């Protein structure tokens, strides 16, 4: 049985006013039943006796008519759920992600935060749009073999777009602790980007050295992590099929999945209650391994690919059963490079290139070469002779992630970052050569 939900509040502003302001509370109980290898799930948001009885009956009725699944494992007990802990790679516990300060944010406090952002916009003769949100959520899992786990978390988020007549700038940040957010500082950075990118000029599409700010990095690399899954390898839909153990990226790329990282958020157990391991996915450019749900690991051990996929064991990354996707890593942390560079240092070292604040509407073009397309947005600048020269019209890119992560010339210290196309990660800014812009739009 999974229990999830909580309270969520969001104040939305545009044109220098609050135009939407919402709050909701909802909890869902989701029940999975198993009968001789048959399983199914039903969910409701009603917790009265009759509704709970009905949701169990619905789950049973769905499960009984399934075909037996030979790969279905018994639910894990409490001991098995902790058995995959790896002391070598795991910190003792995830840090607390519940902060009373965040739960006490009222509509009035959010409005005062928005007022600061609007005042910054007015000071620069700009208009602003964005959000200020806060939430308090729970995730729990209980099963008939005695497993019982519970996670609570808070999150506050600020996202700001500043708009000038022909340009815009953007910043976004979130944290379990509201004290870590500074709406005024974010507003000033977004405003500066909008002002500095005004009167943008068109430069031709082509291959450029680009500097992607962290939000741009996470939004584009996020498109590959669905593939770091044992099930994706078994399904032959992963770009890592036949490539695990090979050096796919540059020597300077090391990527972990680490739910315990202090800048990460999220639940320390997976959809079956298994403890999430901390794992190296990529080390010095070599793809080391993928993640596994329990049943996926058992299937992989019996598959023809078992000798070509690195370590095979449940890693605590499974989705709630039943599902067809298996698992994926969701707490991505890029390792700090040997010689981190600040964004300013990257710009100063660039003879000619493009600084990208944010990417948008990214979609996969080629699943095996991992080519993705998308647009730049809200602050794209030409760099010449080590200096930001001016705003440029936004580009469309068609870029292989394999090539991109092989062409990284410099990185910053990774930071917690949030975009709109992928989940939050701990990522650096990156300076990348030969980034493939294929078209220019009209603004």
């Amino acid at each position: 049985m999974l229990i999830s939900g909580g309270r969520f509040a969001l104040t939305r502003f545009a044109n220098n006013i609050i135009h939407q302001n919402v709050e909701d509370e909802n909890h869902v109980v989701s029940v999975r039943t198993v009968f001789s290898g048959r399983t199914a799930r039903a969910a409701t948001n009603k917790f009265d006796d009759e509704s709970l009885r009905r949701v169990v009956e619905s789950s049973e009725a769905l499960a009984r008519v399934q075909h037996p699944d030979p790969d279905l494992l018994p639910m894990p007990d409490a001991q098995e759920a902790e058995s995959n802990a790896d002391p070598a790679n795991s910190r003792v516990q995830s840090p607390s992600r519940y902060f009373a300060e965040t739960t006490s944010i009222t509509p009035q406090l959010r409005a005062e935060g928005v007022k600061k952002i609007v005042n910054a916009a007015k000071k620069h003769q700009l208009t602003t749009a964005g959000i200020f949100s806060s939430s308090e959520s729970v995730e729990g899992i209980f099963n008939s073999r005695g497993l019982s786990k519970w996670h609570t978390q808070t999150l506050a988020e600020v996202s700001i777009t500043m708009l000038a007549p022909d340009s815009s700038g953007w910043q976004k940040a979130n944290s379990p602790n509201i004290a870590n957010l500074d709406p005024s500082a974010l507003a000033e950075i977004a405003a500066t980007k909008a002002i500095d990118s005004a009167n943008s000029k068109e430069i031709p599409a082509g291959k450029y050295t680009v500097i992607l700010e962290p939000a741009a990095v996470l939004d584009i690399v996020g498109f590959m992590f669905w593939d770091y899954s044992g099930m994706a390898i078994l399904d032959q839909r992963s770009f890592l099929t036949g490539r695990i153990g090979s050096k796919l990226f540059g020597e300077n790329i090391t990527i972990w999945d680490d739910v315990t990282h202090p800048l990460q958020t999220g639940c320390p157990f997976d959809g079956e209650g298994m403890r999430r391991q901390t794992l190296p996915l990529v080390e010095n450019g070599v793809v080391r391994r993928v993640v596994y749900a329990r049943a996926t690991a058992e299937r992989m051990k019996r598959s023809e690919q078992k000798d070509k996929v690195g370590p095979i064991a449940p890693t605590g990354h499974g989705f709630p059963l039943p599902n067809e996707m298996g698992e994926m890593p969701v707490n991505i942390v890029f390792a700090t490079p040997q010689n981190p560079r600040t964004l300013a240092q990257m710009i100063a070292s660039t003879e000619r290139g493009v600084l990208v604040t944010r990417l948008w509407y990214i979609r996969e073009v080629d699943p095996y070469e991992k080519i993705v397309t998308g647009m730049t947005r809200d602050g794209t600048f030409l760099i010449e002779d080590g200096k930001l020269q001016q705003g440029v019209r936004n580009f469309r890119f068609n870029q292989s992630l394999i090539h991109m992560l092989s062409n990284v010339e410099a990185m910053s210290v990774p930071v917690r970052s949030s975009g709109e196309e992928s989940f939050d990660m701990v990522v650096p800014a990156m300076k990348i050569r030969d980034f493939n812009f294929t078209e220019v739009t009209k603004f």
Partner: protein
Amino acid sequence: MKQVANWALNIATMRGATYADARIVNQRSRALTTKNGKVGSASDSESTGMSVRVIADGAWGFAASEGLSRSGVEITAARAVEIARASAQVKQQDVRLAPEKPVTAEWTTPHVIDPFSISVEQNIALLLSIDSELRSVAGITLAETNLNFNREEQWFLSSEGSDIHQTKYSAGAGYTAYAFAGNEIQKRSYPNSYGGQWQNKGYELIDELKLVQNARRIAEEAVALHHADQCPEGTFDIILDSSQLGLQIHESIGHPIELDRVLGMEANFAGTSFLTLDKLRKLRYGSELVNVVADARQEHGPGLGTFAFDDEGVPAQCTPIITNGLFTGYLSSRETAHTIGENRSGGTLRAEGWNRLPMIRMTNISLLPGEKPLTLEQLIASTDHGILMQTNRSWSIDDKRYNFQFGCEIGWEIKNGKRVRMIKNPSYSGITTDFWNSLDAICSRDEWTLWGTPNCGKGQPQQVMGTGHGAAPSRFRNIKVGSAYKGS
């Protein structure tokens, strides 16, 4: 339920709301999938709750809760007013709503077979028979199928006196066959990609789709793509099948005409629009052949954007969006109608569920079919040199909706009026108004399909909505082709 909603309205009004509406919604859904001969997921879910939307001190507030007890309703309604008062701290003018006559109404999606009355065994048997057909073709490495059914019952009451009870049904089904070989993954989907075809219908939709009958052909095409030539780069005439054209309409017409985007309300997330207010009734959006409507009425068809009333109680309407190529209309709401000089909302405000704020959403945004009889085969026969592209594989467009790029699952080169070879990885790109002005032929009504897009994302917090898009295969001249692989 009406008593609960009325109680919420009373509380909101007593607390100082000058306008209030309450929506109580019960949603039920069933999702079944198979993968390579096994059931992938089997789940039922149900969700019930209430939201209260108010104007107080001239600003909006919204609160929602699963709790429908008397005390729960009181807390939710009072909270909505408190939130509105906070909103009023950062306002310039009071919100004003276009007038709308209150109505009392009952409406249910016309359907023949309640999809929840069909046994799960029958549904799974259908999916597994499709799966078997797909995997009977050598070279298929992954077969996925899906069936989805939804029922949404809603009570809408407002402080102005509206009392509307609507029950909407929708169904969706589709499948995809993947072929991995060498360094390439190819796929084909039917009847459309990303979940297949969806409409506001009962189970009869599933019977109409001829799912099993097309499975082997689809699988064979997926495998054959490995032997096809790469899509060339250059400028070509292209013909889009109706499903791809449906998505083209969605992205390059449906989103830019949303008045909340135009007014900057989505600037932080979904983006704005190139269709600034000065372009209304002045911009030549497309060629003379282009006629597009936003039509939520039942007579347009069973699209995912079909209803009797929107989520602020405005009746379904048909708005001419593009008329003989001229841009003539936006999607509007009661709050935004006055900005385009209208004294009534276009009736497009919808919410994903009981706990989400209604916002401007596409209804059925459809390109009307050509008036002269024209089949797809006749259109191909009249094309000297071009590429036919079918079934979307990737889609992307900038945040003002100018520059787009679409990839399709399969293409066919046309020479001298005949399909001469299969092409893999076809893609095309362009600028919205240039593209629609290059349209020179639309197939007629017999080739027209009302497609459903079940996954349109917008808003903060993001809401997913179903939209409808009617289209017939059409031809576009001198389009940039193949840039998705340029430089790779």
